[in-house]
């Protein structure tokens, strides 16, 4: 069931090539504007903060649309054919995969247009993976809530930013260590533990709470 839902998501994404292209152009555009504004004069903490701000805004914009299509007749079809827990797990898994690809694209263009300040690349990629999955998981549920509250254009950002803060603070902390090139022995593994725990916690909560959003 989950696999067929994932397949459906993927097919829909590639059938509408304008969205997937739009996302990449959005990322490149944001990075290019930032590069022009800073003119390459970034110290390490600013480099780190700017990267995660761009990732945060991209992910909120992109994930905001993940439930937009699931309204009206489509919602009724989903309601009759799928179980809510399968549906949210498929959504989260798909958004995680999407955000993973997207954050690596973001990093590539960020390093290309601005510069690559990361000294411990392995650690940075670990953080990038955990951050993307965490962002995707939280934003999937937030998108499901926002799609039910119509008529407020900013509702997605208003709902997501405060609940994303614990994740972002931890991510910036550990990513700073990667940028500074701290050896593996000195890495704050308790922070990586918190990131994994936040991922798991979000998935469990979505699993429990999403069925209540399911019927209209």
């Amino acid at each position: 069931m989950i696999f067929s839902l994932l397949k459906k998501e993927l097919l829909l994404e590639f059938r509408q090539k304008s969205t997937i292209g739009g996302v990449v152009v959005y990322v490149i555009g944001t990075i290019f504007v930032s590069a022009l504004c800073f003119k390459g004069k970034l110290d390490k903490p600013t480099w780190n903060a700017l990267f995660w701000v761009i990732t945060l805004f991209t992910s909120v914009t992109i994930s905001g649309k993940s439930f937009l299509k699931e309204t009206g007749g489509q919602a009724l079809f989903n309601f009759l054919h799928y179980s809510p827990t399968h549906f949210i797990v498929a959504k989260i898994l798909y958004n995680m995969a999407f955000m993973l690809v997207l954050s690596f694209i973001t990093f590539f263009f960020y390093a290309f247009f601005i510069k690559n300040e990361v000294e411990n690349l392995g650690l940075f990629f670990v953080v990038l993976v955990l951050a993307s999955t965490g962002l995707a998981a939280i934003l999937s549920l937030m998108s499901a809530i926002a799609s039910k509250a119509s008529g407020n254009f900013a509702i997605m950002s208003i709902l997501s930013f405060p609940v994303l803060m614990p994740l972002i603070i931890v991510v910036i902390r550990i990513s700073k260590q990667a940028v500074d090139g701290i050896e593996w022995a000195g890495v704050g593994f308790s922070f990586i533990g918190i990131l994994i725990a936040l991922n798991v916690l979000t998935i469990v909560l979505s699993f429990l709470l999403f069925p209540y959003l399911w019927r209209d």
Partner: protein
Amino acid sequence: MKHWYKIIAVILILYTLVWGLLNDVPRLDILNETIRNVYYHVPIWFAMLFMMSVSVVQSILTLTKNKLDNDAKAYNAALVGFFFSIPGLTTGSIWAKYTWGTWWTFQDPKLNGVAISILIYLAYFILRFSVDDELKRARISAVYNVFAFVMMNVFIMILPRLTDSLHPGNGGNPAFAKYDMDSSMRMVFYPAVIGWILFGYWLFEIKNRISFIKNKIHD
């Protein structure tokens, strides 16, 4: 006798307001007489956390029982808790000015946590205003409330223990309870906590009665 807790709340708060200014406190560097703020600042935050917990319990009841009264109660509790955050912030800010030398600092995870939780409850109120259908609003806002409450607790409870904080009891700063709060301070502090929590519950009951009457008139 259903008014007992209101009487206790009034007596306890009056007692702590007066005796908190009169009793003996330990002489400590930097803190000096501002240590008395522990009778006002900390209990107000405890009252806020209590009201937020009431709100999330009511939200869970909304989801399991699917009743509208629980939703109204969850909203009222969040409103009262939000109301407590204003004096909580003000007393904290004044205290910070006299001890840390600044009204607000981003160095402290507790302050950031408070800012985040205020944002969360503002988002919760805006979410409620943007859904018209009552049953739908009850379910959606309950889901957000439960999720946001867990995230807020992650922020407030866990993160400060991993990073340095200027607050007592964190990052090498002494905790009041362990070293400095002597028995004469405890005689004011604990009654203050109970008093403010009971006062919060009183406000919550009044709000509930108002929304109950409004519902009656509406029908």
